[in-house]
Every structure is written in C-alpha cells, then in structure tokens.
C-alpha cells in the first residue's frame, strides 16, 4: 500500500489518531483524579492508578506524534509543523487549530515536569500539574470545534461520554476531599 499524500487516507488517520488521543487523555485524567483521591479497593491498589496514569499519558503523546505528523504531511491542507506548537501559525481554521496547539503545549509541560519531578521538587511540580485541568477541556474543544467529524453522532456521543466521566470523577474527588477522613 503506498502512502497517498493526496487522498483521504491521511485525513482519516489524522482524525482517528486525534480521537484516540482524546480518549486516552480522558482516561489519563480520570486515573490522575483517582490517584489524587487515593482511590483503592482490595484488587486495585493506589500504585495501579498512578502507574496507569503515567503510562497512558505517554501513550497520548505517542498518538499525538502520529496525529500531528499525518496533519503536517497531508497535502490537502498546508499546515506547517510549527502550527502544532504555536497558536495562529496557520490559516486553516485558525482558532480551533490553535486550541490544539495550546493543549499540546500544556501536555508537553505536564509530561516534561513529571519526568524531572524529583529534581524539580514536589511543590513546583504540583503547581504545574494543575494545568492538566486546563489541558483536557482545551483538547476536547479542539476536537469538537475543528469540525471534521462534528456531524457524526457517534463522535458526539463519545465526546459527551468523556465529559461526563471527567465531571463525575472530579465531582467524586471534590466530595471525598471535603468529607473529613481519618487523616484530617
């Protein structure tokens, strides 16, 4: 199979990798909330949430490399590589694309600081990590707004499911944090 730089193949790849990246990012956010909320059951230890959260985030990055790569290489639109990191560096749907760039920048900051967490110290790492709550909604907005699949009902449903899952889990976190526990 030859790589058709002009047909719809790459465009499908861009949309697919983008969607998968968003799903994985949602899973990562959920696992992060569970870790912070000290969720644990008899069969689900705390280090499992944390370990999966870390690995899922790295997977998100892997899919984003494909997502950005297929977008740049596709000759149907002329989106330069720099547009993946710098907002308004491309004319194509400038606002919605820029959201993607912002989300990617935030994700890179989150991953980079996490990789050097011990050298950075817990305080600094934690303050940067709050940006995760900015990164995820920006990514969701980018996915919905960029428009290509907005019409497809199943994409809309999937996005809604992601939003509900994060809102629900974040709600759980807020409630359990407010309730006085044994370590309060």
């Amino acid at each position, binding site marked *: 199979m030859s790589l058709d730089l002009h047909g719809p193949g790459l465009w499908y790849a861009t949309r697919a990798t983008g969607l998968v990246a968003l799903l994985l990012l949602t899973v990562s956010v959920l696992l992060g909330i569970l870790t912070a909320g000290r969720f644990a059951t008899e069969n689900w230890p*705390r280090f499992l949430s*944390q370990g999966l959260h870390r690995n899922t985030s790295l997977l998100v990055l892997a899919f984003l490399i494909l997502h950005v790569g297929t977008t740049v290489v596709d000759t149907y639109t002329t989106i330069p590589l720099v547009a993946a990191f710098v907002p308004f560096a491309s004319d194509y749907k400038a606002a919605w694309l820029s959201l993607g760039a912002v989300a990617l920048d935030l994700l890179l900051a989150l991953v980079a600081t996490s990789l050097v967490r011990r050298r950075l110290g817990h305080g600094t790492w934690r303050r940067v990590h709050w940006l995760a709550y900015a990164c995820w909604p920006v990514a969701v907005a980018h996915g919905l707004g960029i428009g290509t699949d907005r019409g497809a009902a199943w994409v809309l449903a999937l996005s809604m499911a992601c939003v509900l899952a994060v809102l629900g889990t974040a709600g759980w976190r807020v409630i359990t944090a407010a309730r006085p526990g*044994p370590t309060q």
Partner: protein
Amino acid sequence: MSTSLRINPIACTGHGMCAELLPEVIELDRWGYPVVVSPAIPRSLLEYARRAARACPTLALLVEEKAGKHR
C-alpha cells in the same frame, strides 16, 4: 556503603503507596501514615525501595546512601 530509608514527615500526607510497593519494610499506622519497620534496606529490596521512592506522590520517601560512617 549502606542504604537506608527515611521519610520526610512534613512532606508525607499518608498516601500509603510506599506500603503497597514495599510491604516488607513499610507498614501503615492507624492513621494511614508509614512506619519504617527497619531503616536498613537489604540489597535484594533495593530496587523495590527505589521504585517506591519514585512513586511517592509527594516525594516524601527517601532512599539514602551512607558511606558507612554514622552521621
């Protein structure tokens, strides 16, 4: 060269991940805070201890190498 475990009690918030990852040496007290049963880490557990220290959400678990002489 001896390696020992130490906990920064100010940073520790009682997450308890260390006790999950190094149950041979760390137990949790009645409030969920870690008790290091024996600070000296045997060579066989060293890598697990390091992993537990990396996992600590507040970086409160410390694996310290001492060059033999007591402080």
